[in-house]
């Protein structure tokens, strides 16, 4: 009987700790534990046997941390040898014991953090884990046990690596802290969503805590998981006594709590650090008679990010629609210019407005959509903790995004056409996800609700053939334009209702379509949105920055008993109401004082600086602009610029307004009267002013000239890029075209980029002594292969002497120094 079948019949017992037993057997600190599989097989067989005799059904191989990062030609022991020996030891122990037991191929974390937070690439991690799994299958392990994972992203890499390299069942246990959080921020609900999406056969928790602290987390896991749950705690909470680790509870207390956990419904129980055969023996004695609680499918529709889970159910979910180039010329330009900051800002704004999920669509005919999609997903998930909706009709883009996504995404979309289902469903099955299913097929969009229900049924049925349940299908009831078909809203609403009532399904709509071609679209959108929610809509793709839509949403929740004591409603609007009241009072007072004349616009601060016109810069021109830039007031700088543009020429504003102000701040910085935060705030204000001028110039067809191209990079091995980013902000301010290659950049990429564009200047940054050699290497290669390039360098550990000895052209002690150098040579 395979382990998956065995799990249906009874509770299975895992073995316990290995590390402390190996140390007791003579393993020295600093020695690689995996090597003992080869050098001391008798010790391993003995330990495994002791656990088997204590009643364990599962023998975990001594392969925790056995990966090619630590076991390679440098250490003299290769992964394949060690894993092979470890599985043989486990099997020998089972044979000697005469018991029936399962061999778990243990896979632990690499001890590295994945990019972008660390330096291990996702695909490299997949490869490392895959290698272990492949050997495990070849040598006859019964299943793969991925354990002690405290980062969901690494866990995903391990599951993908395992599943792509073997066909054994895969179990995963994660390590949570006392608050039920992963070290990288996830929680039980987000972890379960991702792991079940990836198709693991069992999941749970191990290490980090004792059984007492694990109980609450186990309970949470059991309440959301639709696969068997594993609980392998440490022997208790450790403390150090005379240099020895001791635990706060003994083996009897351990077993007593494990019994409670088994009664709650855990399917596999065992131990982790500090537990011994004695802990397992007592646990087996207490739990042997417990009948396993059948694992029930929870039928929850959930998407997740690395940090949070969002359930799509009765409480409507807001999906922000703004990351999409359709009909947005600025967005299109940002894509063409590879201006990811623009896209990230759209994401942050929508989160601030209250979106729960962000739709991501970067399709534009002239760009490489798969690469852009992958990059944008990675960038967004490194700064925003909302789940993403991958929105593309390009299958390669969809797969690449799903692969690197750290969680369980929404997928937009599949439809009832055979071809669509055949290409999308296998991806959903492999990577996990909730998929938006458009109720249309080869025959087009059904005109009636009946027709759409029929297509929805077909989609559910086909999905089931792929093993995808209805909890992962979100029916798009389709929203047409009411100005061209006056019945279309009625049809959509009926479809929503019938999916809910007849199919017990969940629905989604792109709400804004309804008002196309009508004036004041928000009126129709908001009304339709409320009606749709009332007819059962579960998720809405809308613009969360639209006040009308969010008002409809918040009001609906307050009215439908979804917002306890109207707390969220009050939180959103109480301050606004108070501010409106206060503004009214102020206005009344001002009107009285000024004898009726009242200044327009919310920028009171703008008024205040304008009074300083005469005192600044001698002449009156651009004084308000200068003050805004020097003080670092972004909105004000843009506002003043817009006003100036009404009767001034663009170039005049740049040359007589923005640039002198920037120079003023730069000089202050060099003289030590202005400090870095101010310098950057001024740069940001100047940038806001530039944006306004640029828009105006674009309208009139003029292009602002770039001064010259500069490549910036933080060198290979260095993942701290703050210095480089500061330099970038300033150089862009001064009109240079900056190609930012990012951090941890291979010398070859810097060289090839310089060659491609015949770039005249390269700026390199290194923070640590350990990464200076790669700076040196980069300079050497540039000299050989791009001899025209001037190189400026900077970074915490560098000095002028150091820079000279490496052959750099210029050492820049700070960001202004790099601007000065660029001004000098370009």
């Amino acid at each position, binding site marked *: 009987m395979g382990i998956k079948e065995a799990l249906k019949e009874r509770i299975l017992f895992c073995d316990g700790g290995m590390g402390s037993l190996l140390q007791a057997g003579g393993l020295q600190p600093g020695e690689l534990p995996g090597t003992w599989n080869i050098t001391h097989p008798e010790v391993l067989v003995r330990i495994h046997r002791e656990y088997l005799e204590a009643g364990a059904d599962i023998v975990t191989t001594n392969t925790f941390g056995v990966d090619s990062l630590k076991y390679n030609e440098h250490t003299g022991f290769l992964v394949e040898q060690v894993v092979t020996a470890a599985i043989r030891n486990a099997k020998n122990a089972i044979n000697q014991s005469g018991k029936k037991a399962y061999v778990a191929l243990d896979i632990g974390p690499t001890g590295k*953090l994945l990019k972008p937070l660390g330096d291990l690439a996702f695909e490299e991690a997949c490869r490392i884990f895959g290698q272990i799994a492949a050997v495990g299958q070849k040598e006859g392990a019964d299943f793969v046990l991925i354990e002690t994972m405290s980062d969901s992203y690494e866990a995903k890499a391990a599951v993908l690596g395992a599943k792509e390299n073997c066909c054994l069942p895969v179990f995963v246990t994660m390590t949570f802290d006392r608050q039920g959080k992963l070290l990288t921020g996830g929680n039980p609900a987000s972890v379960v969503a991702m792991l079940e999406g990836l198709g693991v056969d069992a999941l749970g928790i191990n290490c980090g805590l004792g059984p007492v602290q694990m109980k609450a987390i186990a309970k949470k896991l059991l309440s959301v998981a639709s696969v068997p749950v594993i609980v392998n705690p440490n022997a208790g909470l450790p403390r150090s006594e005379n240099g020895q680790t001791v635990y706060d509870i003994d083996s009897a207390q351990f077993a007593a709590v494990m019994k409670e956990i088994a009664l709650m419904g855990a399917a596999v129980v065992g131990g982790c650090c500090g537990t011994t055969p004695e802990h397992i023996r007592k646990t087996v004695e207490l739990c042997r008679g417990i009948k396993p609680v059948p694992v029930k499918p929870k039928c929850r529709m959930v998407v997740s990010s690395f940090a949070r889970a969002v359930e799509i159910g009765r409480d409507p979910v807001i999906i922000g629609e703004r990351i999409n180039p359709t009909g947005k010329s600025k967005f299109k330009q940002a894509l063409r210019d590879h201006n990811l900051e623009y896209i990230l800002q759209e994401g942050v704004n929508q989160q601030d407005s209250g979106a729960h999920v962000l739709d991501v669509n970067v399709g534009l005919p002239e760009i490489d959509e798969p690469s852009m999609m992958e990059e944008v997903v990675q960038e967004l998930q*490194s700064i925003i903790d909302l789940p993403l909706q991958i929105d593309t009709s390009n299958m390669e883009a969809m797969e690449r995004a799903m692969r690197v996504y750290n969680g369980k995404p929404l997928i937009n979309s599949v439809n009832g056409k055979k071809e669509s289902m055949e290409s999308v469903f296998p991806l959903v099955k492999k990577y996990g996800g909730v998929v938006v299913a458009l109720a249309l097929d080869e025959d087009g969009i059904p005109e009636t609700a009946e027709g759409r229900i029929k297509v929805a049924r077909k989609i559910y049925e086909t999905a089931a053939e792929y093993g995808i349940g209805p909890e992962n299908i979100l029916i798009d009831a389709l929203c047409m334009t009411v100005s061209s078909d006056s019945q279309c809203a009625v049809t959509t609403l009926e479809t929503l209702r019938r999916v809910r009532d007849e199919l017990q399904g969940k629905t989604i709509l792109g709400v804004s379509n309804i008002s196309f071609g009508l004036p004041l679209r928000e009126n129709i959108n908001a009304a339709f949105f409320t009606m749709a929610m009332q007819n059962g809509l579960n998720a809405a793709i809308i613009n969360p920055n639209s006040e009308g839509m969010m008002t409809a949403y918040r009001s609906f929740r307050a009215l439908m008993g979804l917002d306890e004591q109207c707390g969220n409603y009050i939180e959103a609007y109480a301050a606004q109401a108070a501010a409106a009241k206060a503004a009214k009072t102020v206005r009344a007072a001002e009107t009285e004082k000024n004898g009726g004349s009242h200044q327009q616009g919310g920028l009171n601060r703008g008024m205040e600086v304008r009074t300083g016109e005469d005192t600044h810069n001698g002449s009156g021109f651009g004084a308000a602009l200068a003050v805004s830039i020097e*003080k670092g007031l972004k909105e004000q700088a843009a506002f003043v610029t817009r006003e100036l543009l009404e009767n001034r020429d663009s170039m005049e504003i740049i040359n007589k307004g923005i640039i002198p102000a920037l120079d003023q701040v730069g000089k202050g910085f060099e003289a030590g009267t202005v400090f*870095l935060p101010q310098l*950057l705030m001024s740069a940001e204000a100047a940038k806001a002013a530039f944006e306004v001028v640029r828009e105006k110039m674009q309208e009139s067809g003029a292009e602002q000239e770039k001064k010259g191209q500069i490549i910036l990079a933080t060198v290979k091995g260095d993942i*701290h890029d703050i210095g480089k980013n500061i330099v970038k902000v300033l150089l862009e301010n001064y009109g240079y075209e900056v190609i930012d290659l990012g951090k941890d950049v291979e010398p070859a990429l810097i060289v090839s980029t310089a060659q491609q564009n015949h770039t005249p200047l390269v700026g390199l940054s290194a923070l*640590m002594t*350990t990464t200076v050699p790669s700076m040196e290497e980069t300079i050497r290669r540039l000299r050989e292969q791009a001899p025209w390039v001037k190189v400026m360098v900077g970074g915490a550990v560098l000095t002028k002497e150091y820079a000279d000895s490496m052959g750099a052209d210029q050492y820049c002690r700070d960001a202004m120094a790099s601007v000065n150098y660029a001004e000098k040579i370009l």
Partner: protein
Amino acid sequence: MKQMDAMEEWLEGNGEFPWQDREILRYLGYPQEQKVTEQVMSLIGEGKQELEQAARPRSVWKEYPLRVEGHLLTTACLKTVSKNLEKNLKDCEKVLLFGATLGSQVDRLLQRYARLQMSKAVILQASAAAMLETYCDWQNERLREEYKEKGWYLRPRFSPGYGDFPLECQSSLVSALELSKRIGVTLTDSLLMAPSKSVTAVIGLSKKPRVCTVQGCEVCGKKDCPYRR
């Protein structure tokens, strides 16, 4: 100890973190007594709030015997020759190896602003550094009290990279303390810590109190450092 109580409360989810504004400003390059603009102070205020949300400070420590043979210092799997560390560990029979971090969410926050608002990124960078120091000081103070009862005196914490204490020792500290597993602190190939706002250190344990202790910043030989106190 007001500072201690405030930290305790904040860690339990109440009150404010005991910020030391002067330290934040020092990391930002402001000389003592320098007036700071209202705009910068308000950005610092925002940054502090966001950090209080994002940070999940964690720390671990473990006691090991210390052997000194000639100039070779040996403890756990750490072996090194370092004049500065040797001086720091004078009269010590044992050491505490110590590791702490603010967690990876702080790095994400830093990354967010590095992409979207650099002025705030540098402010967060400085504030997070100050936060980590304050947290380590608090944790060390607790250890000092705990060990005092047993008759031991703690020396100031000393980290790889301080003076001539080789950065390469980072790996031994990280593996001895199992930092990646226990608090999520890892090393890159070039020995940078990830998450970035993390610390490892050696803390000497001695039976003898030390009369005059130079600690922290002033120990360092780099006298021209712009951040020197």
